[in-house]
């Protein structure tokens, strides 16, 4: 396959960026999207040009590092992570636009690499269950009904990639935040911190400069792990409940 790539290049956080055009040839349809970019980078290095910087690590769709907006879609046309997107989803001769996640809370570091530390701070504000090592009771002391366990798992699958924020026209982190709130709040172990968790996490989310939710549903469409849109409603319910109880 022969492709034309238009890639966002930006030297560093302070520099202005722009789209640059590159041609790549000899692309196999079995390649992953990132392997296609590897090919481009190998050529650039040999030519003495700077390779395109992009975040990636596990390349099996679980670490959440990869973060490209491909032809306007976070993680590209398939519902998966960029690293699990394969070139068979494209046609010979295609022009592909590659951009970084765009959100005020995710400033660009270089080229396609953005700073997602805001997500870490949301978790730090309450996305945990306080259980210091050694203090745990016997695992079978509390049975968790299977539906609750499944609900928790469904939300715990979030990989923190930030596609939800990138896809949201408001740059909102509601889906990310709700995934963690729902995962922990449904479990009996999470009950003691149920109210403070949701209040603190939402407050932190707001203070990071993410936008509000207008329920466009873009986040859930882009989510490679299928965190569902009703997750947000469930968090709103938790939040309203907490405003009544946590005082």
């Amino acid at each position, binding site marked *: 396959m022969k492709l034309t790539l238009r890639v966002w290049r930006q030297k560093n956080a302070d520099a202005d960026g722009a789209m640059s055009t590159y041609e790549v040839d000899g692309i196999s349809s079995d390649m992953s999207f990132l392997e296609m970019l590897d090919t481009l980078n190998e050529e650039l290095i040999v030519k003495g040009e700077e390779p395109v910087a992009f975040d990636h690590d596990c390349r099996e769709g679980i670490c959440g590092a990869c973060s490209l907006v491909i032809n*306007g879609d976070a993680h590209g046309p398939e519902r998966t992570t960029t690293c699990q997107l394969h070139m068979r989803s494209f046609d010979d001769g295609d022009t592909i636009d590659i951009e970084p996640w765009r959100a005020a809370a995710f400033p660009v570091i270089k080229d396609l690499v953005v700073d997602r530390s805001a997500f870490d701070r949301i978790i730090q504000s309450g996305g945990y269950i306080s259980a210091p090592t050694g203090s745990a009771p016997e695992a079978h002391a509390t049975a968790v009904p299977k539906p609750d366990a499944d609900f928790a798992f469904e939300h715990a699958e979030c990989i923190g990639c930030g596609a939800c924020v990138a896809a949201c026209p408001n740059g909102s982190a509601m889906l990310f935040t709700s995934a963690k709130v729902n995962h922990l709040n449904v479990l009996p172990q999470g009950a003691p911190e149920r109210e403070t968790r949701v209040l603190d996490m939402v407050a932190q989310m707001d203070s990071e400069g993410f936008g509000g939710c207008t329920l466009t549903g873009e986040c859930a469409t882009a989510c490679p792990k299928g965190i569902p849109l009703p997750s*947000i409603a469930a968090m709103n319910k938790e939040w309203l409940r907490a405003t009544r109880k946590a*005082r």
Partner: protein
Amino acid sequence: MALATRTDRRPSLPRTVWDSTVGKKTVMAVSGLIMLLYLVAHMIGNLKIFFGPDDFNHYAHWLRTLGGPVMRWEWTLWVVRVGLVAAVVAHAVSAYQLSRRDIRARPSKYVHKKPRASYATRTMRWGGIILGLFIVWHILDLTTGTVHPGGYEHLHPYQNVIDTFSTWYGNVIYITAVVALGFHVRHGFWSAAQTLGVGNASRDRFLKTCASGLALLLTVGFVSVPVGVMTGVVS
């Protein structure tokens, strides 16, 4: 960025709600539902126009005596008006503040643009502005009579309505606004349900159907009046 750490004293409930995007959305949802409730009643009242001038004018008169004898002439109406103004203001101010925040949260756009979300979802902001402007015109036209075409007569709404819908622009403004309202309600009702935490996966279809049904009902109900005037059913 500093971490919002927990302090022993939490801010007051109104402060918590107003300072939070989730809280402000709740304000929008509640105020929106209040207005929606009013609109349903308003629409049902409007349909009385098809029973002729006496029926319709009598209904308008009755509205002013509502709650009597405890409430005096127009007292209830004013309570409702104040409530509605509060809802409109709360809805609009929240919307304005949230929108500003949303726009700031996404300062640079994607070079590669794609049409996103449904039409109803994308037009919430413009639709809201259109509806806001319409409300002003609608009150000046049929409540105060300030911009009313022809001679406005207090407590004779039947004739006033016919006057308005006898002008082309009256119809255009009104029908445009009602269509905008339909779209606004279609996303807004479902969205309010999500904000209030009523939505979940199994209820989603039901809520969406309700939203579409309500939107359709209101649109058809409201549009039937100018259509009635235009077609001569109401004259």
